[in-house]
């Protein structure tokens, strides 16, 4: 290991290409934490945004007018305002309205920290898109298939869980794929509320080392790999979900 670090240190002194997050222990730790935070935040948001999508699409099919209206209002509000402002609104505005808890350094702090708010805000943002995506998937399931399940005595919830949702899922994977890739890219916004994700840590490092170019290129490559892994995973999943005999 050490000689690799040495090599990068020499690279810096010889060519000026400065990659402190490889050879410097402090920066390496920061960068690794940033990467982990980004992955963790992405996974949490992926999970919850899909949950929100599934539940929202179910509520949208409700027979109660007001339930549908509220879901629609949620979708329109979150789709038509900047995610960054949503993040600020959640963190600064709503965060201060919630009850406070004792913290371990002798004061009171808001119930939720910046990471939690980033996770909530981004999940709601991506969830708004997922509701629409699932809704269109559900509409693509033929009515007659649902009727067949009805005729077999399935309840509404059973039909949704066993028939509609599994079929809708398969139709929407490409669209959802796209949305989730966007979500991973959007996690960079958490930078603005000081969530120590990759962009934040990179920014700290370039402030200290004045190596913007190197950090920038590293960031672009890192996101490229992250998005690539996600897309590969989703494609694999799509193939696994493929129904034999169709398409």
């Amino acid at each position, binding site marked *: 290991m050490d000689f690799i670090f040495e090599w990068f240190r020499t690279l810096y002194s010889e060519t000026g290409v400065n990659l402190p997050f490889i050879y410097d222990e402090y920066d390496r730790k920061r960068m690794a934490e940033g990467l982990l935070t980004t992955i963790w935040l992405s996974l949490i948001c992926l999970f919850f945004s899909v949950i929100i999508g599934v539940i929202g699409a179910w509520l949208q099919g409700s027979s109660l007018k007001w339930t549908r209206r509220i879901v629609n209002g949620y979708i329109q509000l979150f789709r038509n305002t900047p995610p960054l402002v949503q993040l*600020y*609104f959640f963190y600064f505005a709503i965060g201060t309205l919630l009850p406070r808890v004792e913290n371990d350094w002798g004061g009171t702090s808001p119930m939720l920290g910046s990471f939690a708010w980033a996770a909530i805000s981004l999940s709601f943002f991506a969830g708004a898109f997922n509701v629409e995506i699932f809704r*269109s998937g559900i*509409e693509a399931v033929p009515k007659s298939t649902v009727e067949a399940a009805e005729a077999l005595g399935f309840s509404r919830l059973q039909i949704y869980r066993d028939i509609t949702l599994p079929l809708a899922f398969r139709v929407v994977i490409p669209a959802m794929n796209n949305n989730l890739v966007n979500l991973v890219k959007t996690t*960079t916004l958490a930078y603005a509320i000081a969530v120590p994700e990759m*962009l934040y840590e990179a*920014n700290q490092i370039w402030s200290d080392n004045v190596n913007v170019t190197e950090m920038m290129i590293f960031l672009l490559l890192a996101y490229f790999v992250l998005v690539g892994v996600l897309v590969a995973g989703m494609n694999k999943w799509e193939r696994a979900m493929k129904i034999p005999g169709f398409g």
Partner: protein
Amino acid sequence: MSYKTDLPVMLPVKPRALEPFKSLKKRHILLIAFLTIVGPSLVFAQTGEFEKSPLAILLDWTPLLLSGFLFNLVISFGAMALGTLVGGLLGLGQVSLFAPTRASSWLVTQFFRNAPWLVLLFFAMFLLPFELNIFGFKLPLPDWFKAILGLSLPVMANVSEIVRGAVRSLPSGQWEAAESLAYTRRQTLWLIILPQCVKRMLPPWMNLYSILTMATVLASIVGVSEVMTLTGRALAAEGGRTDLLAPFYGLVLVLFFIYCYPIARFTVWLEHKFSVIN
């Protein structure tokens, strides 16, 4: 072995049949405004901790914030124009017959499409010089212009994909018919293919514009004096009062919503209209 069945299980996702175009209703805005601005201010007003009510302060600052929002729009127009221009060329490159052009256009498109917008913005902000030296002329590159450049990069990549998608979505019969009438490839592209693509490209293009407009607030992170930056400055000037946060950020939300929601509705309407015609 697979049989043809009529089971339409894997139908492509269809755009939802829509009621006729319905524009934003006043009460919708009022509701949102209440939820985001007035409500939180009232919660605080009852605590009576401060001398001047949050709403009054917000009203003081509104003209300035509006001017900041106009600046966001200027940035969005600039980035959209630039991104569309370059992205259009890149998209044509992606359908070129010349393999190296096709491959390199594809690569550039994918690269900028998969990078986070914010990172691209930082990219433009920090890696572009403060001024360009062209033949001894010093062309200053102010921050807002760099923001336009930075935001136009992802726009460019997305426009490129839109163009490619639209061209690919046309039935191959159109190409063949034109070919057998002895049109050159260029004539086919400009006279037959692209005019038909415009209609297909319009909805995704408008969608992209809406996304771009919402992304202009990212410029605040790199210090351009747009609405979020001004909001930050206003809050600093008012001394970091926590009761002002909700109304101020709420106002920004409302501003964007009023601008972007009609665009979204119009886009869905267009999509629906075109899908009926075709």
